């Protein structure tokens, strides 16, 4: 792609992508390390943690403002918007979770999940190099590495953390509704039947079900966001390749036009994907917690 790259010493296409896919990783002694294997509990991704916490605080603040200024008279636009959102989540929760007492925790949980994941996903709408370029100016001077990934949900750690938390809520409700005895009995008696020789098979199926639900819950969000982010980077590469060839009428000219068209189309489609993925995560949260209320 940078075949006519005369004179500049910029990165080539593969290096650009690889550089942009690196997380700002630290281990617990605050040294900069690179993750060696797929599952490595000794490192954490500072950029994902930072952006998810900041976005969570911002969302909490916005919703708190709406709740504080809420009037029972004619609502203003902001209050109406927040009410629309809350009503939507409440209706979905009512349709899935039958127990009104559980809904007091689960409906706000669903609202949190939806708003937070939507905000984290929306970080993908910023230009690909905007925040990493700002970090490039500041970070290395402060002693950090020059890596920055801005979309927390494009990090497998974040999404699996979210889905694992949902699993913990499900387990909590299972034990609360059915009792310890009831829940352990269900663990070995469902789904095939209450015969003693079926107990090991039932237990195995239940474990597989927990694992599969949690992993698919997290990986669906990760896959969508990671693929979206990577395609944005590839589109940015098209524009970058055009920009490096300064003669606009040479062969690379159409890369610039392609960048704008592809970028526009993908951005518009990605708006749908962001909202849909947050909604699906919320619905599955409600459905899994609702399933924990069923007794056999």
């Amino acid at each position, binding site marked *: 792609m940078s075949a006519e790259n005369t004179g500049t010493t910029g990165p080539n296409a593969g290096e650009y992508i690889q550089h942009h896919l690196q997380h700002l990783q630290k281990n617990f002694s605050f040294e900069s390390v690179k993750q060696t294997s797929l599952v490595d509990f000794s490192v954490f991704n500072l950029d994902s943690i930072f952006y998810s916490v900041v976005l969570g605080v911002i969302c909490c603040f916005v919703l708190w403002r709406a709740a504080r200024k809420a009037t029972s008279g004619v609502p203003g636009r902001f209050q109406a918007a927040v009410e629309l959102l809350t009503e939507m989540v409440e209706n979905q929760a009512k349709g899935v979770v039958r127990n009104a007492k559980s809904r007091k925790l689960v409906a706000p949980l669903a609202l949190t999940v939806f708003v937070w994941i939507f905000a984290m996903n929306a970080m993908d709408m910023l230009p690909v190099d905007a925040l990493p370029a700002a970090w490039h100016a500041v970070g290395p001077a402060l002693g950090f590495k020059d890596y920055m990934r801005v979309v927390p949900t494009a990090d497998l750690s974040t999404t699996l953390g979210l889905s694992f938390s949902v699993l913990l809520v499900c387990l909590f409700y299972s034990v609360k509704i059915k009792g310890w005895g009831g829940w352990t009995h269900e663990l070995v008696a469902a789904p095939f039947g209450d015969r003693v020789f079926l107990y090991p098979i039932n237990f195995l199926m239940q474990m597989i079900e927990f694992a599969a639900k949690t992993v698919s819950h997290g990986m669906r969000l990760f896959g969508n966001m*990671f693929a979206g982010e990577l395609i944005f980077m590839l589109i940015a590469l098209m524009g970058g390749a055009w920009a490096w060839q300064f003669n606009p009428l040479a062969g690379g000219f159409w890369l610039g036009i392609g960048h704008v068209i592809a970028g526009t189309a993908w951005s518009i489609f990605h708006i749908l994907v962001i909202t849909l993925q947050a909604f699906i995560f919320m619905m599955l949260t409600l459905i899994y917690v609702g399933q924990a209320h069923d007794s056999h």
Partner: protein
Amino acid sequence: MENILGLVALACGLIVGLGALGASIGIALMGGKFLEASARQPELMNELQTKMFILAGLIDAAFLIGVAIALLFAFAQPFAI
């Protein structure tokens, strides 16, 4: 080295192609059923539409996870020596 790069390219093509095959057929079947159901009972259209989007997300999940893995193989090159 070229052998590995060629095989990785083939692998990415297979992952994306076969995944797209499954996902497209799944969504097409589901969409067809939704349209039929809407024609029979238009009053249920909104509810069914919500559920259809949820199902679309579920059907697309495995495909998109595959696309993410294929893109990772293609660009982050974990098999390059």
